[in-house]
């Protein structure tokens, strides 16, 4: 869909101011101004967007309504007859989720001699991991060190991160990257083998390593290939809908749901690793998302119901530039590099209103302010509102051909729908991007429930209140490996007792006792519902 005549008309205002903007300089915000725009416009600060939980270990903690609705919902198994003795699978380690964290965990668990089963809701590799373009942070250059990395991580997280987790993340990083290199992942290198690395938001050293602009895809493809080479058992289109505990209150398996036949099955395991990823598809506050189709926060729901503790669920990362047009690619991630190369956000009158390289939260808030408070957004045919991101500036600043050379994926994505980003600006709006919090873990991925592990985006504590780009591809490898190693080794000494679902019954009782209205809601969601919608 090319720009409509109305939008074309508006575009002339952007063109009219372009030269003037190229000559001027738009100042960065002062600390106090940043605080103000965040407080007034960042989605996390909207009081009415969250509510305190009324049940479970985190009672009283505030989380987004959309998540609270699912945490305060009933089990899918409520009216299902199950024979928990009828075991479809009986394994040492059960890994739930087929993204990068799940794959790494499965490999390491198997290396400990464990019999491993990996289950995933979609295809193996259909996950947020495969979508990451930017890169992975590792402090491996001479001017860098794990301590320098540590300070960046903890500062980026507003000093709220769990220190032991940051230590594990930064100290294990070089070994994690070395492992991927040894497995034959194709990182971008100089001829002599030196890893190429650049800056990312919030880094004090150039430690963002990448595999062209398919960093996550390359990590995922490699780990998946390796899992397949090691005859590791993988079951696709199989979702976990509830954890099973044994008499000791320890995690001891899961109830599985065949996504295609609708049947339920039982898996028994000595240790369980949840690696179910993020929750962008819950569309907090109606935001579009950059996340994959299965990012519905299932692991948070089933873990919480079994008694695992959540942390930092009141903070979400919004990416300032998701696509707002064309509607076919709503929410598509427009990489930070576009602004890095000089493209400025511009309002309906062709005026710049924020420096292009503020931090993600500030940049997002400024865009929201321009639209909601100042009424200077651009409304498209579908009702979606956005601001311009003036990409043609890049060609003027760096010379013709720059966009084609530096942003080939972006050019391809927009061209498919008739928008030429070399000639015309894009329309953007912040998109839900990353779940900063999750189920609280310790250094080896253990939770407060014995034999239950969590790794990857489903885990909380590593990034505190804000994750820096490049640290989550890192955390899925570091903590995927740690959880896999520990769960695999530990399984040998575990004797599983009788399986039960009493925690679910108890949770339901708690909902009722606290007068929580569940209004027919069941959880986990498994997949978002987009049927009969026009976009």
């Amino acid at each position, binding site marked *: 869909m090319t720009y409509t005549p109305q939008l074309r008309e508006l575009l002339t205002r952007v063109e009219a101011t372009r030269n003037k903007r190229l000559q001027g300089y738009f100042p960065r915000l002062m600390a106090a101004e940043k605080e103000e725009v965040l407080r007034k416009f960042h989605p996390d600060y909207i009081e009415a967007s969250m509510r305190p939980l009324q049940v479970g270990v985190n009672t009283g903690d505030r989380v987004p309504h959309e998540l609270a609705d699912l945490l305060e919902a009933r089990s899918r198994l409520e009216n299902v007859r199950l024979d928990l003795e009828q075991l479809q699978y009986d394994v040492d380690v059960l890994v739930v989720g087929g993204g990068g964290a799940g794959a790494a965990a499965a490999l390491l668990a198997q290396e400990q001699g464990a019999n491993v089963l990996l289950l995933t809701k979609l295809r193996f590799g259909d996950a947020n991991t495969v979508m990451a373009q930017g890169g992975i942070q590792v402090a491996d250059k001479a001017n860098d*060190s794990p301590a320098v990395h540590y300070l960046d991580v903890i500062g980026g997280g507003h000093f709220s991160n769990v220190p032991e987790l940051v230590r594990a993340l930064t100290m294990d990083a*070089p070994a994690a990257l070395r492992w991927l290199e040894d497995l034959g992942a194709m990182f971008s290198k100089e001829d002599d083998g030196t890893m190429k690395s650049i800056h990312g938001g919030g880094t004090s050293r*150039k430690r963002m390593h990448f595999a062209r602009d398919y960093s996550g895809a390359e990590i995922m493809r490699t780990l998946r290939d390796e899992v397949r080479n090691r005859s590791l058992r993988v079951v696709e289109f199989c979702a976990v809908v509830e954890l099973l505990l044994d008499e000791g209150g320890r995690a001891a398996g899961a109830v599985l749901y065949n996504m295609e036949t609708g049947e339920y099955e039982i898996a028994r395991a000595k240790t369980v690793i949840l690696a179910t990823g993020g929750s962008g598809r819950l569309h907090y506050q109606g935001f579009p998302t950059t996340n994959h189709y299965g990012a519905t926060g299932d692991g948070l729901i089933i873990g919480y119901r079994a008694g695992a503790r959540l942390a930092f669920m009141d903070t979400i990362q919004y990416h300032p530039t998701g696509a707002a047009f064309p509607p076919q690619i709503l929410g598509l991630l427009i990489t930070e590099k576009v602004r890095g190369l000089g493209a400025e956000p511009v309002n309906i009158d062709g005026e710049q209103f924020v420096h292009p390289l503020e931090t993600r939260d500030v940049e997002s808030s400024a865009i929201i302010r321009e639209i909601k408070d100042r009424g200077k957004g651009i409304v498209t045919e579908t009702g979606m509102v956005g601001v311009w991101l003036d990409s043609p500036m890049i060609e003027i600043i760096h010379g013709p051909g720059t966009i084609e050379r530096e942003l080939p994926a972006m050019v391809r994505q927009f061209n498919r729908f008739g928008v030429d980003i070399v000639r015309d600006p894009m329309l953007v709006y912040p998109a839900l991007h990353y779940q900063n919090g999750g189920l609280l873990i310790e250094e080896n991925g253990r939770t407060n429930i014995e034999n239950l592990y969590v790794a990857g985006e489903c885990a909380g504590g590593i990034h505190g209140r804000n994750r820096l780009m490049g640290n989550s591809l890192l955390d899925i490898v570091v903590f995927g490996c740690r959880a896999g190693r520990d769960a695999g080794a530990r399984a040998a000494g575990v004797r599983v007792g009788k399986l039960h679902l009493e925690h679910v019954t108890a949770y339901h009782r708690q909902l009722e006792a606290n007068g929580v209205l569940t209004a027919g809601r069941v959880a986990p969601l498994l997949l978002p519902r987009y049927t009969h919608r026009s976009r």
Partner: protein
Amino acid sequence: MTQETELLNVYIMGKSYQVPASLTIMNALEYAGYQLVRGCGCRAGFCGACATVYRIKGDYELKVGLACQTKVEPDMYLTQLPFFPAQKAEYNIRELKATAEQIAYYYPEIYRCIGCNACTKICPQDLKVMQYIGYAQRGQIDRCADESFDCVMCGLCASRCPALIVHYNVGILARRLYSRYLVPPAGHLQDRVTEIRSGKFDEDIAMLMTASADELKKRYNERDIEPE
């Protein structure tokens, strides 16, 4: 959604549906009422879950695209290819050689390529698929790795190949061989691993872990930043 959106007719597995003309195939399936389970992953052109085969009424030519990246057209007959039963060789990457013979050992069918170029024509990523198979045949593993790099492993190439080649599995084997055996390992990375094991940074980290919040903030705000 505005009311005057133009609708057009598509045939989803032969059944006719009216859908807004602006939609992708994926959105059109959902608009028609399908709750997708297979055939949908990243929704952004990265995972290859949504390979779709279609033909426009009156035309004999079969076309393909990623459902999340392709717009509907009038009178499109479409179906998804949610799974392709391709063969994948199992190997231990640590015990291989980066040679043409090695690839041929696992995927001998690459030499049966008849040069029809159907794989290249069908690739939704516009990769020169036949070309990279040619590189593999000749042991030009670096070029095979480079040319196949943007592959999303959707399986369409393999679905069209008269020689039954599974191109994308050849591609990943080549990339892994190239990266593991033909490119020198990063010396600085191995050195850093060794330094960490020797305890070189333990003290620095311990100091940061025990520093007060104010001390950490001060250090963070005063840290030097490597210039661009």
